[in-house]
């Protein structure tokens, strides 16, 4: 405990210098901006800023880049809530209830609770990292491909809970997502799969293209239609920020979300992706009125947002303690560090304590800054979405086009957004939900990769999935969950039969 306080004091000593604070603020500001803009993500921006960081000391450079990273997470939730466009996998869940709240005139409350839960989660995650981060990453190394495969199977169960309507249709969408995830060159042989000769999808379909098409564009068309077929009353402005009862409803979800997201974030290979989905599923299961979920339940924003931010925070640990970057943004940070001659790895905590603890402290400062930047912006966003829709949506279309183009400087990917937008429109008309599809898309790729890696390593022995204890446990849990969720519906079906 005394150690931890001394360490944090060292960290805050580094992070509270005027220069560090300014860099942190700058990073958070840039991050928020690129997070809000659809399509373009932190990777392109950080790559561009790398030469700029040559001139800054390594701690300062990292503090700024980290600020961009979690600033983008924050900004991404804003676009998810106001325009139904999830910029990252992790904000898909936020669209479900967050955008619904916005269309009910509770955009301010949704944005506010997103900011507050992210801050609380960030604070707890910082303390968590300081207290027992390092030993926990060793646990993450125990996860081999077989265990990871079983975790993905377990994760697919969340999609079932995610569904608002028909279970069968939700599962069909999971498989559709898995099918989409197989598009592109094969991991093992390098053969092109399901590309139909289109070179642009040889590396797989870009997540942002799918998400923008089936969430963002389908939503634009839905809104235009509603304006035509019925007189839409402008939703009341409502409160600008969450009140006490909102906070009370959100406190449980925030704490649980922080724990879930923080834990999953530790797993290498971007386990943080699962956090928001897991948190949403948990809250919906625990809720006394699960029917409210998907129709603007504040818990459905608070929990996943907390999980998202906690995961973003703890996913720094595999990077800082093992040298393994869990995602593309972190890989770039490794680049930034090596330019300064620091290579992240097992000895960084002992060899570079100022850097390590300075980063940990700056995480908390960054979260505070994001709260300060974002709460006043809530008013601005609300004014923005109250602009006449006939002007708002063409502007969204333009920014989506520029954003998608900027990801790979590819005009063809812009065209693909139109195709997926149309696909999303058909899904909407046929009452298929897009969220399980996205989950299937994200997990499907890992599912196949890990399955095939496991079997390559075990030389084709399928027992590998039960002989590894973590994998076996996860598979057993999945089986139990399936049974539990089937039992009530069997009962219901039986009752129905009897009634008829």
């Amino acid at each position, binding site marked *: 405990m005394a150690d931890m306080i001394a360490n944090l004091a060292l960290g805050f000593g580094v992070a509270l210098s005027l220069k560090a604070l300014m860099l942190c603020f700058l990073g958070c500001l840039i991050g928020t901006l690129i997070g809000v803009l659809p399509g373009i993500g932190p990777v392109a921006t950080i790559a561009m800023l790398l030469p700029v960081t040559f001139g800054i000391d390594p701690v300062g450079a990292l503090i700024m880049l980290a600020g961009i990273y979690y600033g983008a997470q924050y900004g991404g939730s804003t676009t998810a809530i106001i325009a139904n466009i999830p910029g990252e996998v992790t904000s898909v869940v936020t669209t479900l209830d967050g955008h619904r709240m916005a269309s009910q005139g509770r955009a301010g409350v949704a944005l506010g609770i997103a900011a507050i839960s992210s801050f609380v989660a960030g604070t707890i995650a910082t303390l968590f990292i300081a207290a027992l981060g390092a030993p926990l990453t060793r646990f993450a190394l125990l996860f081999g491909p077989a265990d990871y495969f079983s975790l993905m199977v377990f994760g697919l169960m969340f999609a079932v809970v995610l569904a608002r309507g028909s279970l069968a249709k939700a599962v069909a969408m999971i498989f559709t997502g898995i099918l989409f995830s197989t598009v592109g060159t*094969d991991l093992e042989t390098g053969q092109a799969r399901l590309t139909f000769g289109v070179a642009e999808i040889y590396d797989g379909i870009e997540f942002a293209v799918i998400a923008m098409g089936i969430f963002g564009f389908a939503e634009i068309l839905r809104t*235009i239609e509603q304006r035509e077929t019925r007189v839409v009353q402008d939703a009341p402005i409502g409160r600008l920020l969450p009140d006490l009862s909102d906070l009370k409803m959100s406190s449980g979800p925030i704490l649980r979300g922080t724990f879930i997201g923080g834990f999953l974030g530790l797993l290498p290979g971007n386990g943080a992706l699962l956090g928001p989905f897991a948190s949403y599923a948990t809250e919906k299961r625990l809720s006394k009125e699960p029917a409210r979920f998907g129709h603007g339940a504040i818990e459905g924003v608070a929990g996943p947002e907390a999980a998202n931010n906690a995961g973003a925070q703890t996913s720094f640990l595999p990077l800082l303690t093992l040298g393994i970057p869990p995602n593309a943004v972190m890989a770039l940070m490794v680049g930034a560090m090596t330019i300064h001659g620091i290579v992240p790895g097992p000895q960084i905590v002992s060899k570079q304590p100022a850097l390590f603890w300075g980063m940990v402290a700056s995480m908390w400062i960054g979260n505070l800054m994001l709260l300060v930047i974002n709460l006043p912006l809530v008013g601005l966003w609300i004014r923005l979405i109250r602009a006449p829709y006939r002007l708002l949506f*063409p502007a969204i279309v333009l920014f989506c086009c*520029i954003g998608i183009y900027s990801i790979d400087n590819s005009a063809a990917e812009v065209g693909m957004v139109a195709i997926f937008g149309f696909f999303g429109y058909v899904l909407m008309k046929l009452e298929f939900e897009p969220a399980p599809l996205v989950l299937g898309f994200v997990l499907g790729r890992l599912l196949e990769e890990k399955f095939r890696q496991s079997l390559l390593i075990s030389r084709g022995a*399928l027992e590998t999935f039960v002989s590894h204890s973590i994998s076996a446990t996860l598979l057993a849990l999945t089986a139990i969950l399936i049974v539990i969720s089937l039992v009530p519906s069997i009962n219901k079906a039986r009752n129905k039969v009897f009634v008829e």
Partner: protein
Amino acid sequence: MTATDDTAGAGRKSRIKAPIEFFGGLFLLGLAALGFYGAIDLPGGELSRMGPGMMPRIASAAIAIFGAALIAESFITEGNAPERWHWRGIVFVFGGVLVFSLTIRDFGLAVAGPLSVIISAFGDRETRLVEIIPFAVIMTIGGALLFKWLLGLPIPLMPYLLGY
């Protein structure tokens, strides 16, 4: 596959009790067929030594099963007819996106930007030219400022005139 003509079909007391599920099922079957077709030349291997074609086929087969189930259900359980399609929005909004995609490389943002805003705006019936043209120009300038100058992304502005 268009849903517009089936509201009439439902009215004719067809045996399909839930047209939306029926069309949903057809849609899934189509998707599964596409998946099988795309993986036609890929070796499947076996479960313990999976080839590139295995996963697409498993996914397609599952989609097909759910599609068939939905169609079967549509003859048994009562359900809704799908809503009408709104072609105006589809044509103009996606038209705007496609025009952006076709013009951005050769003509730059100066052309692609306003065109995509104006075309997509006509997806809504309230749109008027006098309002949308200046708006499109302002938004394009805003987009260029944000993405090109502030974030420094290499987006072509006016390749013919400026060379970038």
